[in-house]
C-alpha cells in the first residue's frame, strides 16, 4: 500500500532536497526498510546501527507518535502520512 513519508528539513540534504516521497509499506518497520533502500543516508539519520530509531527522533503516523503505540510495528493504512521529526528540546 502507498504511504507518504515527510522528513524534517534537517534530513533533506540526504534526500536530494526532497521534503516528501511516497513508498509502499504496511508497517513503520517496513517503511524504514524501504527508506534504507531508497535513501540510505536518510535512514542512517533516523536509525542507529542496531536498527533502533535514534533517541531524539520521533516518527509520527498522521498525528500519533509511534513511541506511544506499537513503535516500529505500527501498522500503516493506504494514504497514511509518516512524519519523521527531530525531538529537539532541553538545555
Amino acid at each position: 500500500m502507498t504511504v507518504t513519508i515527510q522528513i524534517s528539513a534537517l534530513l533533506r540534504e540526504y534526500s536530494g532536497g526532497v521534503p516528501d516521497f511516497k513508498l509502499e509499506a504496511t508497517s513503520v518497520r517496513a517503511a524504514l526498510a524501504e527508506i534504507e533502500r531508497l535513501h540510505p543516508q536518510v535512514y542512517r539519520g533516523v536509525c542507529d546501527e542496531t536498527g533502533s530509531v535514534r533517541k531524539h527522533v520521533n516518527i509520527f503516523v498522521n498525528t500519533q507518535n509511534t513511541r506511544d503505540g506499537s513503535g516500529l510495528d505500527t501498522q500503516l493504512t493506504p494514504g497514511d502520512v509518516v512524519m519523521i521529526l527531530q525531538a529537539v528540546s532541553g538545555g
Partner: protein
Amino acid sequence: MSDRVVLCIGTKKGLFVAEGSKTRKKFELRGPFGPGVSVYSALVDTRGTPKIYASSCNPFFGMKVLRSTDMGHKFKETKSAPAFPKDDGRALANIWSIEPGKDKKELWCGVEPAALFRSHDNGDNWEMVQGISNHEHARKWHPGNGGLCMHTIVRDGNRVHLGISTGGHYLSEDGGETFKASNKGVGAGFVPEPFPEFGQCVHKIARHPDAPGRLYMQNHGGWADWDGPGGPRPDIGVLRSDDHGKSWRSIAKGLPSDFGFPIVVHPNDPDTVYVMPLTPATRTCPDGAPAVWRSENGGNSWKRLARGMPKKDSFYTVLRDAMDIDELKEPSLYFGTTTGQVWIGRDGGEDWECLFDSLPPVNCVKVAVV
C-alpha cells in the same frame, strides 16, 4: 536586617557560593561544594533562618540534596532525596528544581523523569505528589535533549504552575492535588500538531505577585523558518498569560530570536521582564554578541541590554535556571554561561561586568538578599 547578597552558582563540577555586600561591587567565592558532581538546582531559602539547598546529581551513586544552615560555608546531605516508589518503574535521574512550599519547612522538588516531590521537614523526607507524577499524561511525555524534566514550580496561593520539558504547562488550582494541562496558545515545532494539548517544550515560567493572573513563559521557539511538515510556527517562543495560565499569547515581536531558556521578572515591577535570546540552531548568542533583552511594558516592546558585554566572539548558552535577579531597590541581574562565566547586570541590567571568568560550565544561578 538583610544586608548580604548571596549568589548560588550550580555548575557541572559542584556548587559555588558567592557573597557580597548590598553594593554588589565585589563578591567573595567559596566552593565547590559537592565537588565534581553536577548541580542543576539551588534555592536560597529566606523563610525563617536562611538556608541554602542544592541538588547534587551524581551519575554514579544517585541524587542527593545538600543543605547549608550557615549561608553556604558548609553543606550536609539531607537524610534522604526524592525517590520513586519501588514498584513505580521509574528511577530518579536528576533534580531540576527546588522551591519553597507553603510553610517554613515545606519544599517542592521537580525531577527527571518528570515528577513532583514534596518535603515537610526541610528536605529530610520526601513524598511523591501523585496528581502530577501519575497524571494520565505522565507516561506520554517524551524526553528531549535535556532529559524529561520538571524544571519549573511556580506557586501562587492555591495555584501551582509546573513547567515540563517536554510536557508543557500544567496547572493545579487545588494546592497541588490535581493538575490539568493548560497550554492554549503554547506552540510546538517538533510535532505535527502546532498547538497540541500537551507535550510542549516549555523552558521557563515566571510571575510577579503584584500582577495576579499574569505569567511569562519562555517556550521552545525558533520555528519561524521551519519549512518542514506543518509549516512555519513563528513567535511561539516568548509568551504571556493574563488568566492564570489558562491561555497564552506571543510577546516575541521585537526580539532577535524567540528561542532562549530563562525568563525573569523584575522584583519591583511586574511589567518589566528579561529574556536572553539565542540562535535557535546553536543555542548560542546571536552573532557571537551576548545581550539580555528587557521589556518594561509587559512584552509589548523590547530593548537590548549589552553595555559591558563582548561585542563579538562569544558563543555561549545561558541555561533555563542560569539567570536571576536580586530583590534590592535597584536590582541587579545575574547570569551564568556554559563557558563558566558569571555576569552581573547592575542598575536593572544597564551595565554588565563579568564577576567570575573561569568556573566550570554553569547550570543554574540563584540569588537572594539575606
